[in-house]
């Protein structure tokens, strides 16, 4: 069970100024993923070990002899960040029993992209959380394989054009809906699951802090706009994140000990077209496609509202 942490809400005054993920890394201009990672690291603090899956984050942060990591960091491969984190957690546990490792709490955070999480890494992730390891898994979701050049993943949304789900005479881009990774993690009945977006930095900081303070596995899914892959101007990253949330395309919620709570409640959602039209990957969509996407988003949002209502029922 999740321990109720002492929850100091982040406000500008108490955001740690220290950058544990260093400036001067090689990320693209306007990278949403890096904004999220930077905030997670501020919430985590220096008593942290980071595991990265192969992907954009690993590439931009670790080109030898440079490193962007001011905490211990390890990269092994693409599909196994959760398994490596499990090994680290277990190693520290036994070494601590033998007085061979610091007694202070060490946060273990695994970062992986949507491909490293929802596709190739889902087995190792499922195994690690089922075994109850005490770590936080952060999926930075930019909705395709951006590091290799914008190929679709199972996290690519319906209708998005990528280099392997291209628009053509017989294709409207990605033809299946986005895999609902946070709900798959919630189905593992782990103590903490949340969605976040760097456009809502305080919400993200609080969730990261809460995830990290959780005893046992915690999962944080961060919506990460990607100017390179989504084909939007680099100065619109934060704006597009907001539009994604305000339109209900990417709702922000927490599932604590199985109970879902929407963090940004939208009395009136913006139409999805406001979000879609900002990005080149959706440019080909016709009005009927947009209507189709609107229906899908509406249905998804209603489902969340009903789940929230259900979970808040007090016996």
């Amino acid at each position, binding site marked *: 069970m999740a321990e109720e942490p002492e929850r100091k809400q982040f406000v500008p005054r108490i955001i740690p100024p220290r950058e544990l993920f260093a400036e001067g890394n090689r990320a693209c201009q306007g990278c949403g993923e890096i904004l999220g990672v930077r905030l997670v690291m501020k919430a985590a603090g*220096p*008593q*942290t*070990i980071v*595991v990265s899956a192969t992907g954009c984050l*690993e*590439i931009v942060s*670790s*080109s*030898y*002899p440079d*490193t962007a*990591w*001011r*905490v*211990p*960091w*390890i*990269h*092994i*491969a693409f*599909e*196994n960040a*959760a*398994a*490596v*984190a*499990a*090994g*680290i*957690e*277990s*190693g*520290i*546990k*036994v*070494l601590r*029993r*033998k007085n*061979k*490792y*610091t007694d*202070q709490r*060490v946060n273990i955070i695994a970062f992986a992209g949507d491909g490293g999480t929802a596709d190739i890494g889902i*087995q*190792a992730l*499922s*195994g*690690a959380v*089922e*075994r109850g390891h005490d770590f936080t898994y952060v999926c930075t979701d930019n909705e395709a394989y951006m590091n290799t050049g914008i190929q679709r993943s199972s996290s690519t949304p319906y209708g998005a054009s990528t280099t392997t789900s291209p628009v053509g005479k017989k294709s409207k881009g990605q033809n299946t809906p986005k895999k609902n990774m946070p709900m798959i993690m919630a189905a593992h009945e782990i103590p903490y699951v949340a969605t976040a977006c760097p456009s809502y930095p305080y919400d993200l900081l609080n969730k990261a802090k809460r995830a990290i303070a959780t005893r046992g596995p915690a999962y944080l899914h961060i919506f990460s706009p990607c100017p390179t892959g989504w084909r939007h101007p680099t100065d619109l990253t934060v704006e597009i994140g907001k539009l994604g949330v305000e339109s209900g395309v990417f709702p922000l919620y927490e599932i604590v000990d199985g109970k879902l709570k929407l963090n940004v409640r939208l009395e009136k959602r913006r139409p999805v077209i406001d979000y879609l039209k900002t990005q080149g990957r959706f440019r080909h969509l016709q009005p009927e496609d947009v209507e189709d996407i609107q229906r899908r988003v509406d249905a998804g949002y209603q489902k969340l509202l009903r789940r929230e209502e259900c979970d808040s029922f007090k016996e």
Partner: protein
Amino acid sequence: MAKRTGLEVSLAVSEAVKMARAEVIAAYPITPQTHIVEELSQMVADGELDAEFILVESEHSAMSACCGSSAVGARSFTATASQGLALMHEVLYIASGLRLPMVMVVANRALSAPLSIWGDHSDVMAERDSGWLQFFAETGQDAFDLTIQAFKISEDHRVLLPSIVNLDGFTLTHVIEPILLPEQGEVDAFLPSYEPPSRLDPQKPTTVGPVGFPEIYTEVKKQQNDALLGSYEVILEVWDEFEKSFGRGYKPIEHYKTEDAEILIAIAGSMAGTARIAVDGMREEGKKVGLIRPRLWRPFPFEEFRNSVAGAKALAVVDRSLSFGGQGGPMCSEMRSALFPLDEKPVVTSYIAGLGGRDITIENFRTIVSDTERVLEEGYGDEYKLIGVKE
């Protein structure tokens, strides 16, 4: 004082892992390795071994978890076989490339297809170039001792590389043998707690596993290879110390009746036992036959090997693995090329036998020797031969 105990060899390996005080074990069930990890699970459950046992969902995760636990400085162990080893393949290269010491016992088993749970060496030969130290056990005592030695060798700061201890599936893992079990205190004196030169520790942050551009990749690989080649001296040192502590001496290549031998058989693993009996039989008939058994496969003991076969007329290498479309036996092609630069060298013949659990009989060894005699008389016929094929 060591006591002699009748033990299934798998359980003896578990005992060795316990006495080595392994701290993290991550493993997944696969025949014929499973008895090892079942026994270790029981030891942890009974509180006899203070370790974290990670019940991973695949061998890929087993190897990945061991990388994580080794990187924080915990003594790490896993065991696998066949498809499980193949599934680990990717991560094996990373463990050695990142210089993460750990020990893995491989209960050698054939690779699919067709599916076979029975023994041969095709699983480990596919990992020949993975940068791990690799040993082959012939007996249960061999397996027990090598497991303990492998931790000491791998963790030596001059080495810092992972080790594979090979034991034949079923013909070694599942047989009961008399094993000399040392006292825990003796093992502790021989194998102290692992102190890594650096570890993942927030007090002293390090970046492990960064991207290597073309400017440095070759240099990193050279360092890694130097460490593997350099481990040879450490291995000899450790075996020397082991002999002083426990009275059992080990060599990279074991010899049997080789002094005046004209034809040498080379085979790794438990089938060397049958080969010995075959050698004895042929000796009685006046044939000058001997046996060499490589215990150390990586790093390959070139000098030791060349000395071992010096003076022989022929070397008949028996592989339990087939390199398809190539030279046939992976061990043979290695041995052949090791001898190639020499002016004086034996004729090398290559035989593939014992695939997928097929027994290698005394008669098979006789066939191999008589075929080698024929080659000595007539010259080369085949690049290699499969022995005991039903036509």
